[in-house]
């Protein structure tokens, strides 16, 4: 597959790994946070850690929109489907997230709720057109990558005059999350979590451009390198971060030049701005309330807002006391530091957000990297 296979070449990877090894200075550590869940997944799936020197540490950030979706919002989605109120359309990723009362969207579906798994926002619109007598709610999640398609279907719904289609909006924003992490006491004051640089998300950046990250680099004096989705992209970005840190620079660099420009996708951005506006605050699972970090539907499109049509009230539900997701999402702890990791909390029975999606730090480690926790003799 073009533009995929070439970026997964193992030979080239070893070459870049060699350079990282040469340029990473012994005696100092390089603590790099990759924010995007896709990067977390790539690092685990391709075993990139195996190729890095011991003093380059990858910290997994909260870049998984499924993982940071609070329990209370899933409860809301389940309530919408309950009692036949509405057909709830959702991306497959959210189906297994555990909510209150031992339920999940998948379990609610098994009990008869009309919950439908879709691949694209356009499918939700189509379902609404095919079922004019039923209310159809699109459970919209995702970062800036996934938001423009939601904006498009809302506008299309208006153009079609659809009266039975609404969106339950849970879109969240990347820069706010990064700020929140950098503002956390462990990072800012206590210095207990060394966070030297960031690998910027790939596809979010194709939409928002590289410009929004210039603020962090400046304000917090940390380098950011936007990396493409493939393992070679990630390795090259790590090399670029190591170089910046060695040279004492704190700039925004773009490794993903084939798809990211400074401005991003202007058309997508303006469509989003037409339909959505910032919420003052939004709860992120594991992080608490994060200011100006999420979107809601503007008044002009109120007719398509599920929260308004169904009078949804949000009730915050705390995570299990044993769950260390909050600390793990901020990079303060590792999955193996959590008491319930791999014992009570597994991908089959996830307790917290980090285990729920295949890119959560805990799920990725459990699925791909767990064997490294124990010495294994290979014949």
């Amino acid at each position, binding site marked *: *597959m*073009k*533009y*995929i296979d*070439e*970026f997964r*070449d193992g*030979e*080239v990877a070893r*070459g*870049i790994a*060699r*350079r990282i090894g*040469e*340029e990473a200075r012994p005696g100092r550590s390089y603590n790099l946070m990759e924010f*995007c*869940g*896709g990067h977390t997944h790539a690092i685990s799936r391709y075993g990139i850690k195996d190729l890095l020197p011991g003093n380059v540490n990858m910290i997994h950030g909260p*870049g*998984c*929109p*499924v993982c940071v979706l609070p329990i209370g919002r899933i409860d809301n989605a389940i309530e919408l489907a309950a009692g036949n109120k509405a057909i709830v359309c959702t991306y497959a990723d959210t189906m297994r997230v555990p909510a209150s009362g031992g339920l999940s969207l998948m379990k609610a579906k098994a009990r008869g709720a009309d919950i439908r798994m879709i*691949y*694209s*926002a*356009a*499918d939700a619109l189509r379902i609404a057109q095919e079922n004019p007598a039923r209310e159809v709610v699109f459970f919209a999640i*995702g*970062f800036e*990558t*996934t938001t*423009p*398609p939601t904006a*498009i279907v809302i506008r299309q719904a208006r153009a079609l005059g659809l009266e039975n289609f609404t969106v339950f909006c849970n879109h969240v924003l990347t820069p706010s999350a990064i700020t929140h992490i950098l503002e956390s006491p462990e990072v800012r004051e206590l210095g207990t979590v060394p966070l030297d640089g960031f690998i910027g*998300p*790939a*596809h*979010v950046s*194709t*939409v928002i451009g590289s410009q929004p990250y210039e603020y962090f680099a400046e304000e917090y004096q940390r380098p950011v390198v936007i990396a493409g989705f493939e393992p070679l*992209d990630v390795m*090259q970005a790590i*090399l*670029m971060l190591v*170089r910046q840190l060695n*040279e004492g620079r704190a*700039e*925004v*660099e*773009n*490794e*993903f*030049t*084939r*798809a*990211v420009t400074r401005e991003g*996708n202007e*058309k*997508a951005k303006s469509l989003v701005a037409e339909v959505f506006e910032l919420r003052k605050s939004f709860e992120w699972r594991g992080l608490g309330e994060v200011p100006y970090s999420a979107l809601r539907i503007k008044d002009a499109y109120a007719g398509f807002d599920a929260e308004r049509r169904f009078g949804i009230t949000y009730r915050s539900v705390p995570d299990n006391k044993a769950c260390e997701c909050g600390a793990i999402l901020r990079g303060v702890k590792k999955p193996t530091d959590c008491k319930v990791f791999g014992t009570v909390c597994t991908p089959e029975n996830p307790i917290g957000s980090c285990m729920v999606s295949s*890119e959560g730090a805990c799920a990725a480690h459990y699925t791909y990297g767990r064997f490294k926790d124990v010495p294994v003799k290979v014949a």
Partner: protein
Amino acid sequence: MCLAIPARVLELLPNDEGLIDVGGVRKRISLELVTGVVPGDYVIVHVGYALQRLDPDEAARTLALFAEAGAAGDGASTAVA
């Protein structure tokens, strides 16, 4: 997050849609978020929508950077903005 994949545009279809191809698998997707895309172009596709056109020159440049980084060199840094 944001599972997105580079795909080749095979043909433009009405209503701002396009037929794309990835490794022989074809799908109809929306081109509403991109402009000036023509058959033969590559786009990044996410949840059924093309998000951005992929720049083949930049892709080639990036691959060359990888190779250069990998080659035994003088350790000189190459900043890419």
